[in-house]
């Protein structure tokens, strides 16, 4: 089985990002470290799991980007990839996901594949759309957010457990060839083997990553970049159904809950308070 894993390096801010309000300093090259995208590590681990479980799996790792992107391939080799492809080109900017998807589709369909694995999204500026766009371009089915990938008997299709929120999982069957985006691997990604990591350079095949591609114009232009404010919460407004006096009370107290909280501390025992609170908020049911 031919498995292609798409990997990339992401930018991470070194140290505590809240330490300064000076954005320029924060986003200075010196302050940014490169790391292999965490979801891609999970994808590499799942590929390796398939190899160990079923044998006869050939893993090709593909990355697109400048010289610095090559480290992702070294890590992939360390984690067991058999073939390494580097599509040499300048780094993609935000908004160019479609161009990247086209480049990858060109490479992947050119070499033939049974399964493409990629990370759910990238850690830095990711929108999580490349895997989906790739499946669209290749005209194959896609399964997103996998947490466990296996082969069905006969090996013509996959059995994928995917995360559908709050830890719940959905099991789907998907015919091959297909694209699967990986949210988590069934066990923590392994450490790359040092010997393989160090000798990976010899394995890397460099290709021109700029050939035959039409540039995509971004639909938006950036206006300004600033420090993110903590997520705004919904502004508190009293319920319209309350009487005027109650609304006034609510506004002055900043909400009923706060007032209750103070009062409750004195009279009832702690376990009663806990029980009543959970009851009131619907976490437990009355008798």
């Amino acid at each position, binding site marked *: 089985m031919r498995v292609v894993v798409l990997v990339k390096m992401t930018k991470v801010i070194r140290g505590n990002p809240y330490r300064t309000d000076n954005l320029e300093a924060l986003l200075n090259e010196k302050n940014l470290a490169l790391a292999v995208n965490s979801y891609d590590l999970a994808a590499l681990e799942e590929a390796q799991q398939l190899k160990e479980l079923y044998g006869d799996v050939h893993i090709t790792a593909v990355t697109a980007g400048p010289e610095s992107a090559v480290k992702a391939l070294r890590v992939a080799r360390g984690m067991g990839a058999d073939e390494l492809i580097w599509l040499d080109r300048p780094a993609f900017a935000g908004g160019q996901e479609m161009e990247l998807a086209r480049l990858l589709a060109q490479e992947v369909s050119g070499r033939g594949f049974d399964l493409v694995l990629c990370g759910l999204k990238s850690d830095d500026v990711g929108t999580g*759309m490349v895997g989906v766009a790739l499946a669209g371009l290749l005209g194959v089915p896609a399964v997103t957010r996998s947490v466990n990938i296996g082969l069905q008997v006969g090996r013509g299709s996959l059995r994928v457990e995917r995360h559908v929120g709050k*830890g719940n999982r959905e099991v789907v069957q998907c015919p091959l060839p297909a694209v699967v985006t990986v949210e988590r691997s069934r066990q923590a990604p392994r450490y790359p083997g040092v010997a393989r990591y160090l000798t990976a350079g010899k394995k890397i095949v460099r290709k021109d990553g700029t050939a035959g591609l039409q540039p995509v114009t971004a639909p938006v232009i950036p206006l300004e970049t600033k*420090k993110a404010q903590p997520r705004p919460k919904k502004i508190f407004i009293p319920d319209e159904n309350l009487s005027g006096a109650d609304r006034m009370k609510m506004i002055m107290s900043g909400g009923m809950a706060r007032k209750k909280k103070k009062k409750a501390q004195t009279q009832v025992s702690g376990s009663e308070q806990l029980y009543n609170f959970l009851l009131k908020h619907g976490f437990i049911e009355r008798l």
Partner: protein
Amino acid sequence: MERVRKEMEQQRLWVVAESQGEELKESTYELLTEVARLAAQRGNKVMVLLDTAGDIALEKMAEELGVYGAEAILPLASAGQNSSRQVGEAIAALAKELHPDAVFIAETIWGHEVASWTAAGLGTALLADCVELGLGVNQELTMSRHVYGDTVAIKFAAAGEQTLVVTVQSGLFNVKKSFPGQKARLLERHPARAGVCESVKVLEFIKADPKTVDIIDAERLVVGGKGMGTAENYALIRETAEVLSAAVGGTRVARDNGWVSLVRQIGQTGKTVAPELLISCGVSGAIQHTMGLKETKCLVAINTDKHAPIHKLADLSIVEDAPKVLAEFIAKMKTTAERRQSV
């Protein structure tokens, strides 16, 4: 048909609704309220696109969504299972023809997928997880999104004629009936079928088990810190978790003491959790711990020290001995359960 197309072309802003059984999700109403506000400022109309695979009563929905600002409703007839690709590709095909200025979708698992398929179908970028919408000097749409793990915000403005595909975080906007008396027009059903994805079949659904679920995904958590004192007392945390169908978490001190494993540690060197309910017992609330709590919806703190920082974050503060409170609580829950059985 021609007339319908002409009418649909007037709707410059589209909102994709997400259903949950017979209802629409709260996030859909939030988004619709906000988009309708922008539309009113720009003199635009809003069309809501609705996947009809759920048990939605369309007539009733048309009546209801109007007051939030919807001018028209377009039902999309998908096959149900795995509908995100069908819906997304159908929206892309429609948008290619009708050129709306933007398609807005609330950021959920389903919403994100629909948006990805829509953007891919249109060959455009996806503006995912936006936190703010607005208008620029020339009435062009603007939106901000956070990057680098929520530390940097970038504001974008629409440029050119391409349709934007935007997902917006939920929980940011108030729901408001800004258009009393308005009733949305119900348009003819539009098919949403994509051949290739129907080959993906759902085999089963596995409900998360609170005992084994990753604490990142847990809906409820009971967290114990050093204040629990001993391993025996820590068993009360597990027992409380069991009666509430919650998962167990811990502070670093709890982990150092061997009461929980590293995968259950919350905080800077552990995990960030996002439960609906978290009961924190014998935890001081050190910043390295609380930074892992910032997505928690409802927090109960039990700590003997009334000045402990954890109380500042709490929706309910209990200043008492945590093991005692938990033991009594468990006993109360058990007697209630017994009485329920005997009734």
